[in-house]
């Protein structure tokens, strides 16, 4: 895994939101590495900073109120945070592209889907309208839309959610990006459509070889697709390892709790309720002192309430932010 070239290297990213009620450290020191052609999962509860991390990579944080206050995001060895807005605009959609959660509203209702995919192509490539149309139809075909020539001139309201998400994927991949960010791209879809879209993404990844950053709150989504998984909690990465490692031997109590709360079909049915992680995600205005997970952690000690743990490598490639990691 590590012999592949590093594509994205996020170091200590900090993105804060300055609201009327105070400062919200939505992302507070996230470290993340994505190698070329690697599928990386970023998993966490709502409000743990997953989407903000994605938007920070794209430099699309709404400012105000948001601001990237610290850290570095290296992409192909260059710090994206030092790029001008114009340079960033040329990277977006070309080298890094993104698909969003709501396929129903992510397409402009007044243009045909063909127009919208062509727009993405002509924004970054010097080709004429005929070639752009040809490429668009190719892309529609690639993402498994039947009758691409007819679909080309249809409007978004004439398509289903799953079809629209395919269109979004076609648009995102139309310029052969090195990195595709999928921000909860399957969350709003039916489970069957979800599986189809995931299959499609996996197939396209194999075919085109781009890296994918999958952002989700659903461990099952990344379980099958991701090479490495990063677990985020309260704006920080708490555990990072290969997908296998995470599922086989979770070391952070939070990861362990998440896995415990998934119903298992293989186990015998018991009358015991499904274990859940006690408590709530801390309010971003009142982060607990020490480890941010300590109020909910069954293993928390005095040290956890006083000091903040660092991300340490417990096994090769397995990083954990905990004073009392669970033994493997």
């Amino acid at each position, binding site marked *: 895994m590590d012999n592949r070239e590093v594509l994205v290297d996020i170091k200590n990213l900090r993105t804060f939101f300055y609201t009327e009620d105070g400062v919200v450290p939505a992302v507070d020191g996230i470290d993340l590495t994505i190698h070329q052609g690697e599928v990386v999962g970023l998993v966490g509860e709502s409000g743990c900073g997953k989407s903000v991390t994605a938007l920070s990579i794209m430099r699309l944080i709404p400012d105000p109120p948001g601001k990237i206050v610290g850290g570095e995001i290296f992409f192909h060895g260059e710090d994206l945070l030092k790029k001008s807005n114009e340079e960033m605009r040329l990277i977006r959609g*070309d080298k890094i592209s993104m698909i*969003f959660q709501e396929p129903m*509203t*992510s397409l402009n209702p007044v*243009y045909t889907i063909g127009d919208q995919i062509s727009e993405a192509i002509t924004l970054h490539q010097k080709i004429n309208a005929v070639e752009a149309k040809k490429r668009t139809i190719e892309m529609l075909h690639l993402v498994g839309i039947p009758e691409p020539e007819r679909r080309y001139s249809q409007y978004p309201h004439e398509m289903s959610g799953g079809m629209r998400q395919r269109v979004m994927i076609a648009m995102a991949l139309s310029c052969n990006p090195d990195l595709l960010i999928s921000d909860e791209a399957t969350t709003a879809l039916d489970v069957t459509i979800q599986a189809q879209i995931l299959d499609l993404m996996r197939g396209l990844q194999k075919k085109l070889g781009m890296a994918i950053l999958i952002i989700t709150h659903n461990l099952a989504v990344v379980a099958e697709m991701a090479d490495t998984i990063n677990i985020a909690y309260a704006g920080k990465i708490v555990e990072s390892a290969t997908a296998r490692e995470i599922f086989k031997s979770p070391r952070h109590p939070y990861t362990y709790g998440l896995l415990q709360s998934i119903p298992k079909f293989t186990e015998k049915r018991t009358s015991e309720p499904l274990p859940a992680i006690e408590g709530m995600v801390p309010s971003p205005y009142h982060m607990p002192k020490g480890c941010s997970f300590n109020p909910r952690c069954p293993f928390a000690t005095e040290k956890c309430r006083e000091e903040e743990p660092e991300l340490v490598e417990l096994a090769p490639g397995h990083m954990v932010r905990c004073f009392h990691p669970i033994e493997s």
Partner: protein
Amino acid sequence: MAEEMVEITKKRQKKSSEDYTYVGMVFHRLTRHKLAMAGAAMLIVILLFVFVGPLIWRADPNAQIEGIEGMFNAPSKAHPLGTDDYGRDVLARMFFGGRISLFIGFVSAISSTMIGAIVGLVAGYYGGWVDNLLMRFTDAMLSMPTFPLLIALSSVIGKGVSQIILVIIVFGWMQDARLVRGMALSLKEQEYVEAARAIGASANRIMWRHLFPNTLAVLIVSTTIGIGSAIIYEASISFLGFGVQAPFASWGNMLQNAQQFIWKAPRLIIYPGLAIFMTVLGFNFFGDGLRDAIDPKLKL
């Protein structure tokens, strides 16, 4: 029974294919809107009157019949609507005056809507200090007493068709700016705008390609109603003597001219007055109907 069902399904399918496109749906709803159709009928009559009329009744609007016997002639075969105080054919003057009034209405309403759209889009999209600056300027323009300023401005820049258009634009764009700004504020939070940013679209591109077309439906309605009020403005300015200058006719200056003879020849006031009334009413009815037709939430 089964055949009946097939028949019903067919009917439904036919109907849904009629509503297939947005434009088709709006047109369909518009044709069912009685008031809009009444407005459209009025407008068609006016347009025919103004553009086809002169082809049938070929009289020079500015030719005068010399002498006292030419003045204030009652309607007759030679002059279907009679003559005015200079012995000019009133019907011909109504045709050409109508053309000028409609021209002023169209040009100034469309231009002021465009300016309003630009100001509103820029303010709404960028927000922050840009928004503040533009909207406070708009507020300032709105809080000016329009009419005295209109007159003052026309007396400074002169009298004539292009001057009137300019004056109406200067005082006519603010409502549209507010309207578009409001829409831009909500539209820019839409996910397709974020998606457009994510494919690397520039701010200009997002404003004009992604936001503007989404405001178009409302702007068309606003322009339609704007044409009516621009014609009223023209009439008012001309009525006060700052508008279209003699010998050229406009419905407004025909009214102004006629007021001196209100007791002697009241028909000279009635003709242009009625024409303005019908045109503005027609545009307002049609605009209202259009607004109802483009609102998908409204059952018609």
